[in-house]
């Protein structure tokens, strides 16, 4: 304490040892309770000769243990936007993250942490009065809020557009040739009296691609039911198989042909990637389907399936958001839905206003992305960091 006072007295003359302003200790924002943060304003005209030493203790009176020591050229709040965001004042404030104490035998956490800051210059040392804070787990991760806001905006836009589509169902949707060809393929299968093969990809039911694929199956099954064609859905995942059965049952019921529905048309094959391929390739060679539809998420097996299907003379239509497999479907299928078109397919086929509304929302989302890209590029050219910060992820 005396040393501190002495330092304050000296401070007017030189930079010998001055205590920085605004020393504060607080719980680290937006963390799981693993640390506290000590922060202070930088000294006027500090340089590399000034060293900050931060010591911690379990009580106000010590014993003190050194937690961090660094020259004044580093350790700025601006280095950790994860906690402090991008305020310009961050460049003038130092901080140190101090990990929580492990609770000892018989102790219960979290433990209050006492922190003391010392300023060491070549000629002298000064110390602040100790302050304390208790690390606590937080209920909101503020730096991730931008993502949350984006989700809310997109959600609100989706609901607004769905409502609008309900009022005015005559929305324009551009042609997707692959989906128009689907109708034709089902018709051809009916004429030839041969089955249609529908695959859902190799992901499980909690994958969005598979969800989209089962929705498309619903639309395909409606047409199959009304044309009275055969459909066969070999599955890689038993849960997907069950969902496909439900989806098809619904389709057959709503097309007024509940008696044509056969649950065994969706069946489980095996849950080994290439075992599945071996079996499905075999089915293709033996049953010679008139059309093969591949929707959902695929891995290396894409070409093994589509090449074999191609040699049987089937019309092949694929749709996947698996970017690495798109080239192979493009090369071996008659039509391929690329990426987002997979998610537009069910809306396109059903023409239901709700679905079309959310399709328009996707377009709005793209406009927003384009806008951000354009503005972000211009802003970065003008050296404005606002957009960069808006898009920061932690």
């Amino acid at each position, binding site marked *: 304490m005396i040393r501190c006072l002495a330092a304050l007295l000296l401070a007017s003359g030189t930079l010998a040892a001055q205590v920085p302003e605004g020393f504060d200790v607080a719980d680290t924002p937006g963390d799981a309770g693993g640390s506290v943060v000590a922060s202070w304003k930088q000294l006027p005209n500090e340089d590399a000769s000034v060293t900050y030493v931060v010591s911690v203790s379990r009580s106000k009176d010590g014993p003190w243990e050194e937690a961090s020591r660094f020259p004044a050229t580093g350790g700025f709040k601006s280095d950790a936007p994860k906690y402090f965001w991008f305020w310009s004042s961050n460049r003038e404030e130092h901080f140190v993250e101090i990990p929580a104490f492990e609770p000892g035998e018989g102790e219960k956490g979290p433990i209050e942490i006492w922190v003391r800051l010392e300023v060491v210059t070549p000629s002298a040392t000064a110390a602040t009065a100790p302050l304390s804070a208790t690390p606590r787990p937080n209920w909101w991760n503020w730096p991730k809020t931008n993502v949350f806001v*984006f989700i809310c905006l997109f959600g609100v836009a989706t609901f607004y557009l769905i409502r609008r589509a309900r009022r005015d169902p005559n929305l324009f949707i551009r042609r997707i040739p692959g989906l128009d060809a689907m109708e034709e393929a089902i018709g051809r299968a009916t004429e030839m009296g041969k089955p249609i093969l529908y695959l859902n990809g190799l992901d499980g039911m909690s994958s969005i691609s598979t969800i989209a694929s089962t929705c498309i199956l619903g639309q395909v099954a409606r047409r199959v039911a009304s044309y009275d064609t055969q459909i066969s859905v070999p599955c890689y995942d*038993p849960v997907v198989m069950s969902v496909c059965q439900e989806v098809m049952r619904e389709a057959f019921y709503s097309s007024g042909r509940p008696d044509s529905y056969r649950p065994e048309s969706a069946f489980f094959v095996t849950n*080994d990637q290439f075992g599945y391929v071996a079996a499905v390739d075999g089915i293709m060679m033996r049953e010679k389907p008139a059309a093969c539809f591949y929707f959902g998420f695929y891995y290396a097996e894409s070409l093994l399936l589509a090449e074999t299907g191609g040699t049987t003379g089937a019309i092949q239509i694929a749709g996947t958001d698996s970017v690495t497999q798109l080239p192979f479907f493009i090369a071996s299928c008659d039509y391929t839905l690329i990426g987002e078109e997979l998610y537009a397919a069910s809306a*396109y086929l059903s023409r239901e206003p709700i679905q079309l509304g959310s399709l328009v929302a996707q377009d709005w989302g793209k406009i927003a992305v*384009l806008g*951000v890209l354009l503005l972000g590029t211009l802003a970065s050219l003008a050296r404005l960091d606002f957009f960069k910060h808006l898009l920061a992820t932690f």
Partner: protein
Amino acid sequence: MTILGAWIAVGLTLFMFSFLYKDNPFYKFGESLYVGIALGYSLVRLWYQTWIDKVWEVLKSDASGKWWVLLPVAIGLLLLTRFVPKVSWLSRWAFAFLIGYGSGMAIPAILTTSIVKQAEATAKPLVSMPDKSEAAKKSVDGAKAAWDKAKAAEPTETDAVRATRIRYEEARSRTEYTFVTAYRDLTTLAIFIGVFSVLFYFFFSIEHKGPVRIFSRIGILFLMIYFGASYGNTAMGRFSLLYGRVLTLKKFGGGDYYYSTGILVVVMIGVLTALHFKNRGKEERA
């Protein structure tokens, strides 16, 4: 056991390859065997890894809240109600959990990694500004010194010298506008145009005519180059796999394994030829 294993391995490898000729009894046998073994194998492996480790061991332990592990078992049992048509609607509860779970997980994760991060990476200045900082200048001087040193050691430009020269040019392009900077800017611009035009291709509710049509057409061209490149880039890995199989066949075809590959190939070709003639006779009679 090893010799038997080798013969089985070679046999099954050839059975699966025989699919390239056409669907035939060997392939059908291999396929059925594969389906059966694969399911049996994962059933047993996961019995230990999931059932024993994640359920049984937890129940035996005295961890607090251990009864929670019965909840997923219950959800799983809901799925099994599908065997009982009367109550099979209960399985929908399980579907709902899985589908809701996947959707909830996906939204923030996809938005962060596929949109926000990508947008941040794309929104770059299209023209590089020379970096006038002291650190940048220092790195240029360092790279220049390294290049000079390498040049002095080797009179002709070897790969190592070339690498130092490239490093120097790279550093210099950050402090002043050089050919390398222009190339980098061109790349950034091309990426920007590519992203922009491909996004236009995906517009669904706007008619593709006028400027939208032009952009979406450029987008399709970008997509096609990408698909071609990606196709060509994968070929290497696939051929490596094929070569790996050939190596295995070669190894097991050696004297240590009593020439399994050669013998089995001859036998298979013999049987397939016989089948071919037998079936042809049948077809003619029909």
